[in-house]
Structure formats: structure tokens, C-alpha cells
């Protein structure tokens, strides 16, 4: 007996039973397809949400936090800064160029969907060793995808990091962060409110992109013969369409023509319709025949879960429809009314709630009828079993020591292997004339300003950071150290951290050790954020990063942002150290080598216990760095550099290389 359809679609028997109790009948194939994507790990965070609640999300400057499409903070003078981070790990392993490109496209849509003009991109790349041809192919494709999409869509890529390690050869990580600037009055929520308002689909026509596993419905479902055209295809990004979409959406917001707007990402229309309806507490009717298509004879489930890129769902009052269609025509973007917002109704359980109904055409056959909230917000949450790995406590005692090192390793240590400028030289990092400190430094520093928004005489620092080695040794302390690292990086460009977004890249959540790593890491981020007054305003969780049963190392990455003044010239930089200047080490060094690059690369040891922090000292060090950067001229500071992985030696080597000077320690 073939396995039941819901199992094939990734839903457990219990989840199928929950769906049946909500619908009080068996779901049909279209409803099952929608539930399978909406209740997937990717969309529902069902294995991580119980732990994410422990992250501090409040803060004096926070306007929007987790749950919205982007985190938003107040930067003064009527301006707001939106920030979001996403992972595109699995697609990038399959098709590196398009995987990375669509990752950029998706993260940008999260920014302009809240009403902000995207002004900066950062990327955090974790690749396999470059002597392996496949890892080389993936790395080359990912960088050209980010460059190809980011440059063409017209958003500067101002910073990032690239790391190469054995385990990432099987499962590369591609995390992309984006930042936008908006006048506060342009901020908008993704809620469908107001019965009678129209649901307007903007952007590219719909194809069979990214239907993935659910495509089995094509062969078993509607009796259609599965010829090659039915095969699910990789999502392909179109930066030209996205650029037109950005200009249209920001124009619609400036002209105050929208009630709500949401981007189409994972789960496509199913997600955008159910989330906006649920958020607005409204019912919504969708007419599939009105959805512009790129392929012929697409089945209803394909249209509802397709992940074709560069599409937005807007909620428009009927009186504004003509103006919206006129602006869409001006910006040469397709716009079609695909549905209508309706009042909430009493569902079978007696509760009044928003119902999502999908018809083949207006007044036509009802294809699906589901409470919107059930799809969008009521996936079951799991507190999966957590277990500390076998012998972990014993490993903490097994500190790496230098006694075993006999020969002179200094030359090996000084061997530079990778020059990041070969990557960021492919990214436009100058556009919009905001970049004061660009890629290649500890962090990026940008003026606050954007086209069509205006400019403020202040700036913000931003950095993306991660270090799985710290988390392999001790997930909690490693995650805390990652936050401290990011806070110190932006302090080196004079910015005091106020908010961050995270990207939690972990293995298979059904492995108890992975759930333990995730829970511990979240507590580590929470600890450091609370101690340093940083609010977590959004995040992304990427699980099932594994290959042939081997989970990746725990890799929480964070993008931290802080505010700063416009520095006076000359601005400190790694490239400005001059002969005759002296080097000062500020702050205390810790004794242990545990978790260090030296321990992993030379001693082959991931043992010992990781360093911890006295957060008062961290705060004082942060403020000292900010003071030194802002008054660099007065203090005679040419370079201010954060010591991190690779220790003092790497820090000095980077200065020496950038400034083309020798250094005597």
C-alpha cells in the first residue's frame, strides 16, 4: 500500500489529524498541498519557536519586531531603519547562482514590503574547501549570483564574510542580510483589512518555480500525465523585474494607495494570502483564473504554492484601483486583481475568524476553504527532545595546549590563504553615495539617507558575523561571543549596537544533540543581547542542514546595527597605518586557546571550555572604541581593528597587508 499522501507531503499522522479536526472533514489535495508548505519547518518554525520566545525583542527604538516582515528601529528625525536576514542554503547547493540570487531578491522584498527603500546588502558565506572542484563551483556561482542580482537590482553590497571549512562542502551556507530606510509615515503592515478591498497581485507571471516535493501531486492528483513540462523547476531571479517592483511599491506607498502589502516568498500565494488575511482578521476570496501565468495548464495547487520570484500582494481600496493600475503601467509592472477581502465569519468550531477560499474563477467552483489563521499561525509547535552530546562535559576539560607544538609554525600562521577583496570587488558597494566605510573593514558605516527619502546628518554601522568553531566548543558561550564580536565590530566604526537580526543555521531537529545546540545557542544570544542592551528584531531559522546523516556545526550568524555620527576626516581604516606609528592592544587577553583558529587548524582540537565575558568590561571596551573612532584625529588614531578569530597575529597581519607596512610585535 503506497504511503498516504500527507506522509509523502511531509505531514505527520498527528498533523493530518489536526487538519481533519479543523476542517471537520478530509482536506482535498489543494488544501493538503497548502498545509504541507505552510506547516513546513521553513514557514512555521515549528521546532524552534518555543525557544525563540526567550530572545529579548523589546528596546526603546524598536518599532517592529519578530513576526513582521522586517525588524524596524527608529533612527530619529522621523526616519526608520528596517533590517532582515535570511538563509538560502539548500537552493544554493542545487543551483548556486540562482540560489544566491533569489536569496538576495527575497530578502530585499522583505524590506520594501514594510515600506523602506533598500540601501544595503551583506552576505555571510560558509563554503567547502576550495581545493575541491564542487565547492569551488558552488562558491563561484554564489558570489556571481549575489553580484549579478544585487548590482542589477541597484542595492549596494557593503559588507560580509566568507569562510571555508570541510563540513560546509556537503552543506554550504548562504546567509544574506538587507537594510532599508523609510520615513516613519511610510511604514506599512502586511494585513488585509476592510471587506470589499481588492487583492492585487503585482510583478512577474507565475510558473512552476520551486514547487519541489509537492509536485508528486501532479502525477497522482488530477490525472494529468506528468510530462517534462510538469517537472518542478529551480527558482530563477529577475533583478530587472525586482527593480521595477521596488520603484512601483515605493511609489504606491508615497501616494498612500495601499491598505497593506506582503511579498511572496516561501509557499508563494498560499503564504501571502493566508498571512495577510490572518493578520487582518479578514476572510479572503482568491480567483485562480486571474493569476497571470507563465506556463500553460497549471493545476490549482501549482498556482497556489508556486515560488515564482518578484511578486507582491497588495490590498487596495476599490476607489484607488485605477491609480494603482496606472502606476503599475507607468513602471511597466503587471498588476491584476486576483481576489477580494471579505468580513470574518463563524467557522465550524463556532469561532468568528477569517476564512481563505480559493475558486477557479469568480462565482465558480470552490477549490479550497480553510481558516486563514490555521494555515498561517496554528502549525503545531514542538518542544523536541534535547540531549547534551555524549562526553561533552569531559571534552570541556580537555583544553588544547601548545606543548605539543614543536616546530616553528609562525610562517604557516602568516600564510594568507584568501583575499576577501576578490569577492567584494565584484559587488557595487558605492551606489547611493552613503558608504563612508565599505567592505574589507571590521564593519560598514553608511550615511542615513536614500533616494526619494532624503538624508539625515547621521550614520549607522552594520556587520554580519558568525563563528561555528566557538559554538562547537560551547554553543551557549559561542553564540554569546558571536553577538559580542558583532557589537565590537560596529564599535570599531563608531556605532553603538541597538538591534540585531539572526540566522540560526543548524542540523536535523530530530537529532536531540542538534536541538540542544539550538536551544543553548538561543540562550547565548539572549544573554549577550540583554547584557549589552541589544534588541533581537527579527530572524530566520534554517534546519535540516545535513548531508548523509552528518549535521553541520551549529552556525548562528547575526547582523548587528547601531547608530553613529558622521565622522570627521580622516576616517580610521585598516589601510591607513603609517610607518613609525605604535600598536596598542586594548582589553584583556584570555588564557584558553579553546575554540581558537590555532586550536582547530594546528592542534586539531575542539576541546576545552570557551572564554566567557564580564559584560561591564565589554561595554567599557565598546564605548572606548566608539570614542577613539569618533575623535580619531584628536587621539591620533589611524587604524582601529577588532581582534577576533586568529587572535592578535591575524589582526596585525590584516593591518600590515592593507596598509602595506611591516609590523614589529
Amino acid at each position, binding site marked *: 500500500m503506497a504511503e498516504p499522501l500527507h506522509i509523502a507531503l511531509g505531514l505527520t499522522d498527528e498533523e493530518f489529524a489536526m487538519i481533519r479536526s479543523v476542517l471537520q472533514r478530509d482536506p482535498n489535495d489543494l488544501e493538503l498541498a497548502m498545509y504541507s508548505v505552510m506547516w513546513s519547518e521553513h514557514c512555521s518554525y515549528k521546532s524552534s519557536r518555543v525557544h525563540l520566545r526567550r530572545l529579548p525583542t523589546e528596546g526603546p527604538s524598536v518599532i517592529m519586531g519578530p513576526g513582521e516582515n522586517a525588524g524596524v528601529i527608529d533612527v530619529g528625525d522621523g526616519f526608520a531603519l528596517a533590517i532582515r536576514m535570511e538563509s538560502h542554503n539548500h537552493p544554493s547547493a542545487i543551483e548556486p547562482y540562482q540560489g544566491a540570487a533569489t536569496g538576495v531578491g527575497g530578502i530585499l522584498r522583505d524590506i520594501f514590503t514594510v515600506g523602506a527603500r533598500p540601501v544595503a546588502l551583506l552576505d555571510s558565506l560558509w563554503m567547502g574547501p576550495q581545493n575541491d572542484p564542487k565547492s569551488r563551483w558552488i562558491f563561484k556561482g554564489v558570489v556571481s549570483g549575489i553580484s549579478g542580482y544585487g*548590482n542589477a537590482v541597484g542595492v549596494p553590497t557593503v559588507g560580509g564574510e566568507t569562510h571555508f571549512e570541510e563540513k560546509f562542502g556537503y552543506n554550504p551556507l548562504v546567509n544574506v542580510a538587507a537594510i532599508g530606510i523609510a520615513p516613519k509615515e511610510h511604514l506599512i503592515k502586511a494585513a488585509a483589512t476592510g471587506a470589499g478591498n481588492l487583492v492585487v497581485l503585482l510583478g512577474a507571471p507565475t510558473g512552476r518555480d520551486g514547487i519541489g516535493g509537492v509536485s508528486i501531486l501532479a502525477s497522482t492528483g488530477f490525472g494529468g500525465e506528468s510530462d517534462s513540462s510538469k517537472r518542478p523547476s529551480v527558482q530563477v531571479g529577475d533583478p*530587472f523585474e525586482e527593480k521595477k517592483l521596488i520603484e512601483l511599491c515605493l511609489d504606491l506607498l508615497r501616494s498612500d494607495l495601499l491598505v497593506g502589502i506582503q511579498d511572496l516568498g516561501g509557499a508563494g500565494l498560499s503564504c501571502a494570502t493566508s498571512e495577510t488575511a490572518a493578520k487582518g482578521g479578514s476572510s479572503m476570496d482568491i480567483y485562480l483564473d486571474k493569476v497571470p501565468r507563465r506556463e500553460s495548464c497549471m493545476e490549482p495547487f501549482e498556482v497556489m504554492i508556486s515560488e515564482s520570484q518578484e511578486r507582491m500582494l497588495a490590498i487596495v481600496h476599490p476607489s484607488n484601483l485605477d491609480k494603482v493600475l496606472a502606476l503599475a503601467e507607468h513602471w511597466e509592472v503587471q498588476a491584476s486583481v486576483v481576489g477580494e477581502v471579505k468580513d470574518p465569519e463563524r467557522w465550524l468550531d463556532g469561532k468568528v475568524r477569517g476564512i481563505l477560499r480559493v475558486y477557479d474563477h469568480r462565482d465558480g467552483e470552490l477549490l479550497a476553504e480553510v481558516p486563514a489563521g490555521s494555515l498561517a499561525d496554528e502549525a503545531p509547535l514542538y518542544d523536541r527532545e534535547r540531549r547534551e552530546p555524549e562526553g561533552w562535559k569531559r571534552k570541556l576539560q580537555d583544553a588544547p595546549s601548545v606543548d605539543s607544538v614543536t616546530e616553528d609554525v609562525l610562517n604557516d600562521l602568516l600564510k594568507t590563504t584568501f583575499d576577501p577583496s576578490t569577492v567584494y570587488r*565584484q559587488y557595487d558597494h558605492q551606489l547611493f*553615495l552613503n558608504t563612508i566605510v565599505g567592505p574589507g573593514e571590521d564593519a560598514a558605516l553608511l550615511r542615513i539617507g536614500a533616494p526619494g527619502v532624503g538624508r539625515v546628518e547621521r550614520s549607522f554601522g552594520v556587520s554580519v558575523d558568525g563563528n561555528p568553531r566557538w559554538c562547537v566548543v560551547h554553543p551557549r558561550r559561542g553564540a554569546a561571543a558571536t553577538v559580542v564580536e558583532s557589537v565590537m565590530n560596529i564599535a570599531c566604526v563608531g556605532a553603538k549596537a541597538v538591534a540585531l537580526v539572526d540566522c540560526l543555521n543548524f542540523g536535523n531537529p530530530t537529532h536531540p544533540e542538534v536541538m540542544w545546540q539550538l536551544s543553548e545557542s538561543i540562550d547565548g544570544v539572549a544573554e549577550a543581547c540583554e547584557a549589552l542592551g541589544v534588541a533581537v528584531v527579527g530572524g530566520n531559522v534554517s534546519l535540516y542542514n545535513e548531508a548523509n546523516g552528518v549535521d553541520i556545526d551549529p552556525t548562528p550568524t547575526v547582523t548587528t546595527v547601531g547608530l553613529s555620527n558622521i565622522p570627521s576626516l580622516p576616517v580610521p581604516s585598516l589601510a591607513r597605518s603609517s610607518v613609525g606609528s605604535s600598536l596598542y592592544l586594548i582589553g584583556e587577553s584570555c588564557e584558553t586557546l579553546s575554540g581558537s583558529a590555532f586550536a582547530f587548524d594546528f592542534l586539531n582540537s575542539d576541546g576545552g571550555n570557551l572564554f566567557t565575558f564580564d559584560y561591564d568590561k565589554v561595554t567599557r571596551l565598546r564605548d572606548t572604541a566608539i570614542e577613539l573612532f569618533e575623535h580619531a584625529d584628536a587621539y591620533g588614531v589611524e587604524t582601529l581593528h577588532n581582534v577576533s578569530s586568529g587572535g592578535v597575529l591575524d589582526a596585525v597581519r590584516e593591518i600590515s597587508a592593507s596598509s602595506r607596512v611591516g609590523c614589529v610585535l
Partner: protein
Amino acid sequence: MDKAVGVVVFPGTNCEHDVVEALVDLGVPHRLIWHRETDLMDLECVIIPGGFAHGDYLRPGAIAKFSPVMKAVSSFATSGRSVLGICNGFQVLTEAKLLEGALQKNAGLSFICDVVECEVASRNSPVTSSLELGEKLRLPINHFEGNYTCAEDDLKRLLDEDRIILRYVDNPNGSIGDIAAICNKDRNIVGMMPHPERAMSDLLGSSSGRKILASLLERSAVLS
């Protein structure tokens, strides 16, 4: 003096706002020109900024040349007023046959965003008339197809007629003759790959671009 500078915008252009900010910085009135507009006669000079018109699909500028605005730009140029094409703008001008040659993929087959040194190769152009011959300029470049090429006889004519305006000091992309900017026979249409609007202040790395735009605008009697 209320004659404005026109800044052309195709779908996919993205440097228009930076050019506008530079013009505001120089105190010059401006107007954004959507690619479907055809009336440019009220303008003193036209700038086609950088970006990815039509996504650079097919070839950079290959589709933009058919936009209605390009007929207007062509007749605007025949009236003797200045036209400056920056990066994508230079590519559009070559596709529209307003300038000789073509911009091919960079020799290293990868996108380059950097600040490079250029030198003034001729003072006889709207953008270099107030600079010194051989003057060194630090200018940002940001392109994948900046490798200028042209037929042998075109190159010879460019040299003989002193129409190579800027050269790269250290050729980043394989351009023939290290060419970074040229002008047409009537010396009122200029195409340049470097971005002067991105070099308006030392805070952002260089202010060499200020001299180029100021020179263009003085030449157009816009700067009072």
C-alpha cells in the same frame, strides 16, 4: 538662469539619484526624464546615468536604444548641446550609434567595483575643458562590460582627432588604448565608464568627479 540639466531614466537605471545629488551639490537645476518622454528642448544639457537599463538583457543598452527618449537625445545632440553618457549611459550611446565602438565584457570576465586612477588625455571636451592635460583623477568604476573596443580605423580616427578624453593609468578591464572616455566628432557627446557623481566628496573616497561635472556644466553655461 533656469535652464535645467536632464537626467534620463530607463527602467533598470539606478544611478540617477546619485547624479541628481551631485547636481544639487553644484547648485544646478535638474529634471528626471522618463524613457518615454520626447521633449528635451527646455534643457541645457542631458546626462544618461549608470545602471542596468532593461536589466542589461541581450547587451547593455541594446534595448534602451529603442526607447522614445533616444530619438529626442539624438536630435538634442545635433542642436550642439552637451550629452554625457556615464557607464550604462556610455553603452547606450554606442548602441544608439551616437558614439563609435562597443563595450565588451571585462578582460578578467568579472564585475569590477573599485576606485581607479585616470588621466586627462584631451582638454578639448565638455568634461575636461577646465582640467589640465595629464591631470590625474581618482574615479570610481562599477561595471562588468567596460572593455571598450572599436575597429582599427575608428581607433586611428579617435587618436588623430584627439577624441580620447580620459585614459586609465592602470587598465582595469582590457579597454583598447586604455580608453576610459571618448567624445564624438562634434565634441558635444561624451561617453565615460567611470562615475564622476560617485566622486563628489573626500568622505566617500574622492572628489575628482566634482571637477568633471563642474566642467560640463560651466561649458553648458548652466553654472551661473
